[in-house]
C-alpha cells in the first residue's frame, strides 16, 4: 500500500521567472489557483452546513484533491464533455458552474443547479457540458465512452473527460467501458483519481495492483501517472491525453495520485487509516504548494493570494446566504421531469413535450 506520499517536484522549478510550463499563461496559472481555493472554501462551507443539518444525505468532500479536477479541466477545451463520480463539487466548480446554484443544490432548494432533485452527488450543467456527478460507482464510464462515440460519429472535435476513483476499477463496468472505448478508438480521457481508498477499503484490499494505469494496458490504452497533488502535473498529463484523443488516436488513461484529507463522507470515522498518514499527505496540500510556486516565479504575490482567499471566502458566504434563503421546491412540482415527454393515458390528448430534443442541449 502506497502510504508514503510521492514527493513531486513542480516541473517548472528551474524555469525563469514568470514562465509556466505547458504553455500556460500567468493568468491561467492565477485562475487555476483561484479555482482550487474556490473548491476548498466551498467544501468547508458545505461541511459546516452539513453539521448544521442544512445539508443532508451523503456529502463527499473533495478537499485535498482539488488539483486533479482543476488541472484536468483547465487542460480541456471549454466545450469538451465532462462526467465524474459523486465526489463532484470539484468538477462543477472547475468547469465554472454557478457557485450559488451548486450550494443551493446541496441545500435542496429550487434554485439549485438541478432544482434540488439531485443533491450533492448529482450536480450537472448541460450548458457547460458537465454531464453530472454519478453515484453508482463506475456507471458513467461506458456513458463517457458513448458520448465520445457520438462526438466521433458527428465528427465533432470534442473529447470526453471521465473521472472516477481507484475503487471503480474493481467494478465490471469499468472494464466494459474501457474495452469498448479502446475497441472503437474513442476520444475519451479516463481520469482515475487514485486516492488510495475506496471508502474504507485500502488499495491492497481492493486491487491486485496499486497502480491503476496498469489496468489500461490490457486494453492497449496509453496511460500516464501524474502527481495529483500538483496542478501542473495533472495539467500536463491531461493536455497530452486530450491532444492524443483529439487527433483521432483513441482513448487515453491518466492516473492522478492523490489523497482525500477528509473522510469518505461525513459519516466516516476513518478507522482504516492513521492520522500520521493523513498528516504526511497534508504537507503536500496542492493549494499552498501551487501558491508558493506562483510566488516563487513572481506570477503573483503573497498579498494577491491573500486577496484571492478573501474574495473567494466572500463569494462562498454569499453562496451560503443565497442557498439558505432560497425557496424550497413547491410540493406539487414533484412529478416534474420524470419524462421529457409525459404521456398521460388519462387525458384524451397527449400532454405536450416539456423539454426539447436532448441533442439540442448536447451540442
Amino acid at each position, binding site marked *: 500500500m502506497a502510504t508514503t506520499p510521492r514527493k513531486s517536484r513542480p516541473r517548472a522549478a528551474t524555469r525563469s521567472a514568470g514562465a509556466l510550463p505547458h504553455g500556460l499563461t500567468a493568468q491561467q496559472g492565477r485562475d487555476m489557483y483561484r479555482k482550487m481555493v474556490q473548491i476548498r472554501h466551498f467544501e468547508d462551507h458545505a461541511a459546516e452546513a452539513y453539521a448544521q443539518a442544512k445539508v443532508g444525505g451523503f456529502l463527499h468532500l473533495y478537499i485535498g484533491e482539488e488539483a486533479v479536477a482543476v488541472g484536468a479541466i483547465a487542460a480541456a477545451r471549454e466545450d469538451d464533455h465532462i462526467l465524474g463520480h459523486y465526489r463532484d463539487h470539484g468538477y462543477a466548480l472547475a468547469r465554472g458552474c454557478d457557485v450559488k446554484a451548486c450550494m443551493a443544490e446541496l441545500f435542496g432548494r429550487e434554485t439549485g443547479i438541478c432544482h434540488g432533485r439531485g443533491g450533492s452527488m448529482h450536480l450537472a450543467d448541460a450548458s457547460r457540458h458537465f454531464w453530472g456527478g454519478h453515484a453508482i460507482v463506475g456507471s458513467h464510464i461506458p456513458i463517457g465512452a458513448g458520448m465520445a462515440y457520438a462526438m466521433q460519429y458527428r465528427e465533432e472535435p470534442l473529447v470526453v473527460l471521465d473521472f472516477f476513483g481507484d475503487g471503480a476499477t474493481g467494478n465490471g463496468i469499468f472494464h466494459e467501458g474501457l474495452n469498448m472505448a479502446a*475497441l*472503437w478508438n474513442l476520444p475519451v480521457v479516463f481520469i482515475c483519481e487514485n486516492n488510495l481508498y475506496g471508502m474504507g477499503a485500502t488499495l491492497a484490499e481492493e486491487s491486485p495492483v496499486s497502480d491503476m494505469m496498469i489496468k489500461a494496458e490490457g486494453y492497449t490504452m496509453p496511460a500516464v501517472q501524474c502527481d495529483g497533488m500538483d496542478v501542473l502535473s495533472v495539467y500536463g498529463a491531461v493536455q497530452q491525453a486530450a491532444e492524443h484523443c483529439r487527433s483521432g488516436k483513441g482513448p487515453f488513461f491518466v492516473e492522478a495520485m492523490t489523497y482525500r484529507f477528509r473522510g469518505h463522507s461525513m459519516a466516516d470515522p476513518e478507522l482504516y487509516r492513521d492520522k500520521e498518514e493523513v498528516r504526511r499527505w497534508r504537507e503536500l496540500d496542492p493549494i499552498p504548494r501551487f501558491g508558493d510556486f506562483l510566488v516563487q516565479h513572481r506570477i503573483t504575490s503573497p498579498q494577491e493570494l491573500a486577496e484571492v482567499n478573501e474574495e473567494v471566502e466572500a463569494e462562498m458566504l454569499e453562496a451560503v446566504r443565497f442557498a439558505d434563503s432560497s425557496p424550497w421546491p413547491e410540493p406539487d412540482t414533484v412529478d416534474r421531469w*420524470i*419524462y*421529457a415527454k409525459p404521456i398521460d393515458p388519462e387525458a384524451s390528448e397527449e400532454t405536450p413535450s416539456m423539454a426539447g430534443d436532448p441533442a439540442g442541449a*448536447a451540442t
Partner: protein
Amino acid sequence: MAELTYREAVRSAMREEMRRDSRVILMGESITGYGGSYAVTKGLVEEFGPKRVMETPIAEAGIVGFAIGAAMGGLRPVAELMTVNFALLALDQIVNSAAKFHYMFGGQWSVPLVVRTVSGFGQLGPTHSQTFEGWFASVPGLKVVMPATPADAKGLLLSAIRDPDPVIFIEHSLLYSTKGEVPEEVDREVPIGRAAVVREGTDVTLAGYSRMLLQALHAAEVLEREDGVSCEVVDLRTLRPLDYPTVVGSVGRTHRLVLCGEDWRTGGFGGSLLSEIQDRSFDDLDAPIARVAMRDVPLPYSRRLEQQLIPGSQQIVDAVRRMS
C-alpha cells in the same frame, strides 16, 4: 397493407427510421454478420454499415451505458439485448442511469434510448425462459412497450425511437414468425400509452399483451363457441404508462375481468394492475378479478414439465369458467 411477420415488422421500423434519421444507430451482440440471435437485424449492416449497426462485446451493462452516452451526445441509439434474461446485467444502467437523468438533473436533458429485448421460452431452461416486464414497468422514468402484432410492433417501435425518453421494447420469441397486416406508409406510428380493444364483447374482459394477447383471443373464440360467452379483449400494448381508462371502460361494460400474463404470479405485473383496477372499478365488478400467470417456479428444461407451466388459452378459459 402488406403482410409481414413480427420479425420483419420490427426490422422495417428500424430500417425506415434509419433511412429517415441519420442519428439512429443500432448496437448489440451478434447483430451484424450473424443478423441477431433472432435474425431481427438481418441485412441492416449491409445497408447502413458498421458505424450505424455496431457489433458489440458481450457487455450488457456496457452496451446500455454506452447507448445512454451516445443518446446524450445527440444520437438515437437502439440497443438490442439478446434476451430479457441478459437484460438483468444492464438493470443498473436502465434503472439508475437512463430512468433517472432527466429527473435528477432537473430536466436538463433526457435519454432518447430504446432498449429492444426479447421474452420467451421453449425448452430454454431456467436461466433463459424468464419474463421480467413487471420489473421495468415498476420504474418511473421508463416507458415499457410489449406489442402483440406485427402492425403494433412496427408502429410502436417507430414511436419508441422518436420518443425523447428511454423505452424498454420487449418482443416475444414465439411471436417472431406470426404474420399480420402492416400499413405500408412510412410514419405510421402507434402511440405509446394507448391500449386497444381488439375484440368487442359483453360478458367478460380479457386483458393481456404480447403473446398472451393472442392466447386471450383464442380463449375468446373457444368461450364463444363452447359456452356462448362473449369476451371483450383488450391489448394493453404499453405497460408504462398504462392506459387504465381503456381497461376501466371495458370493465364498465362487461363487469368481469381476467388479467392474462406469463410472468410469475408473485410480484408479477398483473398484481399491481389488479390492485389499481380494483380501486377504480370496484363498483362495476360482479366477480373478483382473475389472474392468469406463471406459477412461482423456475421454468424447467424438460418439455413435459415446462408445458404444464406455461400459461395459455386453456388457463384463460378455465379462469372465465370459474367466474360464472
